[in-house]
């Protein structure tokens, strides 16, 4: 017995004495703004278009977005029309040719190039909208006449177009049709550009508010309520920063579950009607709300380790109340919103992505500072059939490959602002079943 203790101590002290200096680099958590970015970095305005919208982002040393007060400096006769948070609307002043707009935070700056097309010249699709509220919407398809199909178009209603404009409107088309989906609402109108202001008439909508039901296996205390409040606020802060086009209901009722124990695993596709999953007095979980369950354990495959969270598709989220991190909930919401491919390989996680600030993405499968969503991810959340907020039958198939868009013609999952998607070969994968 004594020998065994000594043996133990010998091993531990050897490990302690030798140690590994490389494990001692402590980074202190002080986020500071290290760069400013303007989005889009280039805007081409069609003839006669007077207004355009720009966004700014302040980035910290880890590449995260930080709130900041921005100063805008237009040149070439342009002037600022209005400013709201990170968004500003400008007026060209009637000049054609090149203009610039500089954005500043302290001594940091970035510049957008604006090119105003002279009358009579074919123009790219206008690239700006003007509502300050960062709502989101996906636009794709061109349904009228012989106009060219717009494929990778991710537009954000309000707050300006931030995303992809990969197609061009045929100038002979006049008005062009768009299918716009904002959260669960599908806008099928044929919007028109609104005067010279580059708004889509009739298309503006605030972010969809997703209904939420919160259940807990623990007594509801003020501390528990504060924790849930904080995590829901973090979800909405991250969705807002990424202009995801939806937010979660910030005032859900907290239900105390009488079910003990709450199932620690998704029990197959029948979980919604499985008696073990039903909460006494409520019947099965609703289809029209995200169900978030804070439960005392979410077990792993061999029963010896626990998970921080798990999403039982399509809309039930398990959070391990004794071990999770603030961003576990937003990560699981990503899964519920269809970020699950390649199914069986990486499950929607960004851990195998090349570069792309993968560890800052909400779909990084580890406790880290997760805040980012790519445009490709936001697009899928709204358009792919795998996403719970996409109504049955209305989704497209974005496929299961991160670097391809599937038959739905979606942008690559890795497509993002100012970042060229890595030129990687397609990977074989099998898709989740409907």
């Amino acid at each position, binding site marked *: 017995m004594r020998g065994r*203790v000594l043996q133990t101590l010998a091993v531990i002290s050897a*490990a302690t004495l030798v140690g590994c*200096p490389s494990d001692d680099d402590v980074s202190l958590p002080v986020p500071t703004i290290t760069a400013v970015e303007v989005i889009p970095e280039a805007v081409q305005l069609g003839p006669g278009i007077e207004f355009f919208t720009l966004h700014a982002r302040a980035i910290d040393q880890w590449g995260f977005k930080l709130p900041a007060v921005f100063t805008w400096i237009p040149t070439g006769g342009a002037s600022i029309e209005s400013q709201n948070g990170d968004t500003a609307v400008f007026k060209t002043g009637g000049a054609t040719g090149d203009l610039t707009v500089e954005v500043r935070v302290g001594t940091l700056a970035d510049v957008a190039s604006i090119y105003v097309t002279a009358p009579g010249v074919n123009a790219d699709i206008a690239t700006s909208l003007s509502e300050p509220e960062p709502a989101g919407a996906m636009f794709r398809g061109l349904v009228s006449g012989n106009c060219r199909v717009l494929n990778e178009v991710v537009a954000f209603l309000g707050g300006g177009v931030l995303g992809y404009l990969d197609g061009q409107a045929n100038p002979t088309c006049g008005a062009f049709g768009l299918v716009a989906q904002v959260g669960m609402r599908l806008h099928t109108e044929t919007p028109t550009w609104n005067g010279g202001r580059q708004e889509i008439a009739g298309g503006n909508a605030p972010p969809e508010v997703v209904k939420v039901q919160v259940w807990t296996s623990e007594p509801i205390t003020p501390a528990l309520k504060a924790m849930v409040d904080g995590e829901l606020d*973090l979800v909405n802060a991250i969705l807002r920063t990424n202009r995801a086009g939806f937010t979660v209901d910030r005032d859900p009722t907290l239900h105390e579950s009488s079910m003990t124990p709450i199932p620690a695993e998704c029990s197959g596709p029948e979980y919604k009607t499985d008696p073990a999953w039903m909460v006494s007095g409520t019947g099965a979980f609703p289809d029209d709300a995200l169900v978030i369950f804070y439960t005392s354990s979410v077990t792993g495959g061999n029963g010896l380790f626990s998970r921080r969270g798990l999403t039982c598709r399509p809309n039930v989220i398990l959070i391990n109340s004794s071990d999770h991190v603030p961003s576990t909930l937003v990560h699981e919401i990503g899964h519920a919103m269809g970020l699950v491919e390649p199914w069986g390989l990486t499950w929607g996680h960004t851990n195998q992505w090349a570069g792309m600030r993968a560890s800052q993405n909400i779909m990084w*499968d580890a*406790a880290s500072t997760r805040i980012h969503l790519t445009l490709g991810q936001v697009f899928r959340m709204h358009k792919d059939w795998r996403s719970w907020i996409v109504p049955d039958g209305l989704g497209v198939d974005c496929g299961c490959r991160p670097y391809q868009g599937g038959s739905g013609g979606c942008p690559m999952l890795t497509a993002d602002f100012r970042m060229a998607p890595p030129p990687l070969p397609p990977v074989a994968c099998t898709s989740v079943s409907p």
Partner: protein
Amino acid sequence: MTLRRLSHFSRSRAALVALSFLTGACLSIPERRVVDQWLYCEECLTTMPAQEPSELRAVERLHWRAVSLLSHTLLGPTPRQRGALDSMLARDYYLIREYRAMGLSPAGIRIDSAQFVSRYDEGMVAALQKRAALALWQIGTPSARAAIRYALKRDVLRTTPLRPDVRLLLDTLNARRSP
């Protein structure tokens, strides 16, 4: 501490273990990331429905080389791990605070940073310890198993009390043969 006093322990094996620490127990940065993937994974299901997460299998493949880092982790976060946890929580706290400062939350602005950190910290540290213990048990070398016993010993001596669920797992692993 001298090897001569280890009556129940083969001297040559002790020397080997000590030598292993001296000659390369420190993991390279990519290897350390392999350990991190396991210690921090959220769902750890890259091989579902297989019984054992591939993150854990990858650590097993590092074998004795991972024992030093895992042993330290089992006794509580290393300075690097402590820094990473603090950094993550501070960042999330900051985001929530800024979001509330914009008047966007019905919860109001008040959020206490110390309470916020303590709410998550205990669970995160316990999870690191449990993941470290499981990996040590899977690796199963004498030094790996000794590290589990040592953590239990420190708990008994109350020098570093373990959370009950960590203690329970360590007891279970200590009583079971490594696979």
